[in-house]
């Protein structure tokens, strides 16, 4: 389980998070929505200890992340897969080497045969052909880079998956492919996921619950249906501005949701 308890974070005078609390249950997928620059990625980075809160606590798998030492944090991170906004692939390494780095168990990491098989398995899970393994990141399209980033994140068979804007910068077709992938990994691997996004449509598709981060605070949390039905002016403003409500409602109806 992931818990954020009254988290505060500021960078100089800029207050990013102010008393943010959120709970992500085991096996659940929560989408963290909000406009650009509202602190979604900061929240995600606090979950795996890349940033520390100024106040409050972050608990992952029963461990208080801000209090963890170097070794404990590395151990916890081996259970967390992190998909970065722009892939964050290592330019000088091939796709296979990038994915191999995601294998966090040292014994497995040093076993050539295991790594080779695991890399191919991860490529298959993200719908990429085995030939991609020998390519360099510079030879891949934006969508393929995202998928390799996801493959690297799942290579270590994590318990938690954190997605930072998995569909940003992609055309609608590729964004749909990535959303489908997130959905499929949730179902196949049964991981606990947090998806940070400002793409409302995709988030509503993949998430069990949605949290709206608005002006440094969590403004609304709940299942997609409940958020869509919200009368909160901030929620409405966000949804109306970014969401293409009609399309979502139409899709919701098409998928049998009570929207």
């Amino acid at each position, binding site marked *: 389980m992931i818990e954020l308890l009254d988290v505060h974070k500021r960078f100089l005078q800029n207050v990013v998070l102010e008393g943010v609390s959120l709970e992500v249950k085991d096996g659940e997928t929560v989408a963290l929505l909000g406009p650009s620059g509202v602190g979604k990625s900061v929240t995600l980075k606090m979950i795996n200890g890349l940033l520390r809160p100024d106040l409050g606590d972050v608990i992952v798998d029963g461990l208080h992340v801000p209090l963890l030492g170097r070794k404990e944090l590395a151990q916890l991170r081996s259970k967390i897969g992190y998909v970065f906004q722009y892939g964050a692939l290592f330019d000088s390494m091939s796709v296979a080497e990038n994915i191999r*780095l995601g294998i966090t168990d040292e014994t497995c990491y040093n076993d050539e045969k295991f790594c080779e098989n695991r890399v191919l398995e991860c490529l298959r899970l993200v719908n990429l052909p085995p030939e991609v393994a020998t390519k360099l990141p510079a030879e891949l399209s934006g969508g393929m880079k995202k998928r390799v980033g996801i493959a690297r994140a799942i290579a270590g068979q994590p318990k938690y998956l954190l997605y930072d804007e998995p569909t940003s910068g992609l055309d609608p077709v590729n964004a749909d492919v990535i959303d489908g992938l997130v959905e499929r990994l949730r179902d196949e691997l049964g991981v606990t996921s947090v998806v940070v996004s400002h793409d409302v449509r995709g988030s509503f598709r993949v998430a069990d619950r949605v949290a709206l981060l608005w002006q440094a605070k969590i403004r609304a949390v709940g299942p997609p249906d409940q958020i869509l039905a919200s009368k909160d002016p901030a929620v409405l403003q966000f949804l109306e501005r970014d969401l293409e409500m009609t399309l979502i409602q139409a899709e919701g109806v098409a998928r049998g949701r009570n929207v």
Partner: protein
Amino acid sequence: MSNGAALTLGPLRLVARWSLRTADHAGRFSFLIADMFRGLAEWRIWVPRTLDQATAVGYGSLFIVLLVAGFAGAVTSLQTGYQFTGALPLYYAGAVISESMILELGPVLTALILAGRIGARYAAELGTMRVTEQIDALESLGRSPVSHLLIPRVVAGLLVIPALTMFANATGIVVGYLTAKGSLGLTYGDFEYGARYFFRPLDLWYSAIKSGCFAAALTTIPCYLGFNTQQGAEGVGRATTQAVVSASVAILMLDAVITKLLLVAK
């Protein structure tokens, strides 16, 4: 705050702000160095990467280092001839050229050239990795960026730069001799006599120690600045410029300090 606004601050506040910033840098730099010492235990990670870095940095820098050393040797030789001809015995030229190269020109010029070449490379590489979240990605995979990225670069520099300096010394002396032979008519016997007369084996150690200290400065400072880059492409540019300038200034300051210490030791 804009530059204009900063200029209107009282001098006391400016000094206080500068002091705080310097203390912040000093603290973070110290922690990074401590992290590097701690990371040395993970030798399985950094040793193979060090060899790659050493090959890239050493082999790639050899030509420019030898070129600069050759010109330095030639100019030293010509100036020695200009100043000393008729005033001192000709064999003194051998002493001046070899001692200048070994004690000063070889280590300092090599370090300054490499501050531009290696320093800029390290800062730009690490800065780009920082702003494209590759360093965060490494950390998020439970792997230490210090062992994977910083230690190999610093150790490669510490191994390669003193070696390059020795090559530079040799090249400068040989080119200096050839120039003196052409312009002053200095014989090999005279040159060798002069060079041997003032040479002490300890001079080579001084040269190596000096270049080792310069290597430490010109690798750790760019690594620190690149590793802490912020604000995208502009930040990478700023870090790269700062790395070259800071490393060059540090080399010149270290040169003064070490020369004083070495002369006292002599």
